[in-house]
């Protein structure tokens, strides 16, 4: 369990008495790119929230980068990009570089102060992502795609070992979505970052991810795409056409 980037055993979680996840067990190796799919209400976002400590599990064990979740404190090793900001205010007076720099707070202890290396890390990330030219722009002035790119830069500014993305491309147009997927793919292949990507986009994820987790409150499938494609059980569940689409081996 300790060598995995993420290991979850017998997890149960929910809200106000209702059960969102039950008996969830799976693990993700370092360097894997795991696509997490499932129908609406299947518990995908709850799973992400439990992993990140935003929702407390009701039962089960979680190990993050080899450390039990309850004692995990090294948040700089994990980058998180949500679908969008919780209550985004388009008039929020923050510039692009200020927002990206906020990502550096996870590596700091009290009192959290920025130093020269934080500025350098922000510069490096902006250059790598090709957004250096908008550093002084206000976050609210940007298009949805560019704003998600800035938030991805915020998630990547610590060069995390594990990157968690919760439906990051839902609000994006197909072209921006494609370039977004490519960027994450590069992160995974070139830097060896472990990626967990929650998506509805079952037809695209097979193109980029190495592994698939299909959830419906519990684990329906977890493994690599070849296993998924060859599984008779999955053919029974998805139908040949559906299975073929997810496999993305066409």
């Amino acid at each position, binding site marked *: 369990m300790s060598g995995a980037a993420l290991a979850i055993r017998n997890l149960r979680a929910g809200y106000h008495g209702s059960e969102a996840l039950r008996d969830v067990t799976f693990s993700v190796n370092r360097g894997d790119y795991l696509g997490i799919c499932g129908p609406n209400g299947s518990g995908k976002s709850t799973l992400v929230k439990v992993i990140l400590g935003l929702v407390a599990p009701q039962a089960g064990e979680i190990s993050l980068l080899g450390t039990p979740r309850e004692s995990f404190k090294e948040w700089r090793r994990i980058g998180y990009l949500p679908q969008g900001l919780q209550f985004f205010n388009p008039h929020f007076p923050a510039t692009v570089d200020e927002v990206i720099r*906020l990502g550096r707070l996870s590596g700091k202890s009290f009192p959290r102060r920025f130093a020269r290396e934080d500025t350098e890390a922000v510069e490096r990330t902006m250059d790598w992502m090709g957004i250096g030219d908008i550093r002084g722009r206000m976050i609210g002035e940007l298009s949805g795609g560019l704003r998600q790119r800035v938030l991805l830069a915020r998630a990547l500014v610590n060069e995390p070992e594990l990157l968690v993305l919760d439906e990051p491309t839902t609000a994006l147009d197909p072209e921006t979505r494609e370039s977004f997927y490519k960027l994450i793919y590069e992160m995974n292949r070139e830097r060896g970052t472990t990626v967990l990507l929650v998506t509805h986009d079952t037809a695209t994820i097979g193109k980029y991810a190495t592994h698939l987790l299909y959830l419906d409150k519990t684990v329906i499938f977890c493994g690599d795409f070849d296993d998924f494609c060859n599984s008779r059980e999955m053919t029974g569940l998805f139908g040949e056409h559906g299975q073929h689409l997810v496999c993305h081996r066409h």
Partner: protein
Amino acid sequence: MNISEMLSFGFMQRALVGGSLIAILCSVLGVFLVLRRLSLIGDGLSHVTFGSVALALLFRLHSFYMTLAIIPLVLASSFGILKLAQRARIYGDAAIGIVSALGVATGVMLASMAGGFNIDLFSYLFGNILSISSSELAIAAVLFVIVISGVAVFYNDLFASTFDEELAKTSGIDTDRINAILVLLTALTVVLAMKVVGIMLISALLILPAVSALQLSKGFRTAIVSSAVIGVCTVVVGISVSFVMNLPTGATIVLINFITFICAFTARTLLRHR
């Protein structure tokens, strides 16, 4: 009357220094409160202050001791708002509404027991910065240092929580603690601001400089600094104008703040259409 003549009065010097310190606190905290949609917490806490002032008057406490006595009451109420919102499954605005109404009801009840509203209570309702004493100015200075140090120490945590609470949590920031700190610092500030603009107008001093600054700011730090500058300028101009023209000080400060907001809003609209 010229400026040097005006500044030669001790009470004017105290009013300008005290007013400026309090204006900085209100305007800096105001930016966080406005962006977190907690603007009306100042209103709620000021109504609690009304109840606390009535209680202090019932015990015949005045000015210096009054301020010292109501600080714990307002701090306790600010915790009440937080706990109500967290535990009683109600939204923050409803929690503010409950505590606010409770503060006014208690105030009216106590004032009635004390034989009705009197001049003292009215001076707290509408403020009287020109009457600030040296000891009250000393309290203001001490609280100023406490609040501004709190903001400075937790600045990045406050910024991150204000930008997005969920993202802040995933950075390992204890946002519940940061919320509590913000509300406590606001409670201390509200007690001080009561002297400047009065209980009825405190929320204006928290909200207006912040929203004026937000019209034109190009970054978070500049928003905080511009809000503080606007707060100090409007308070200094307000005190001076009210003194020269013999107008009520609190109301003058609020109206000047509103004019500043209109100017900032117009400037922003013009810049956008240029």
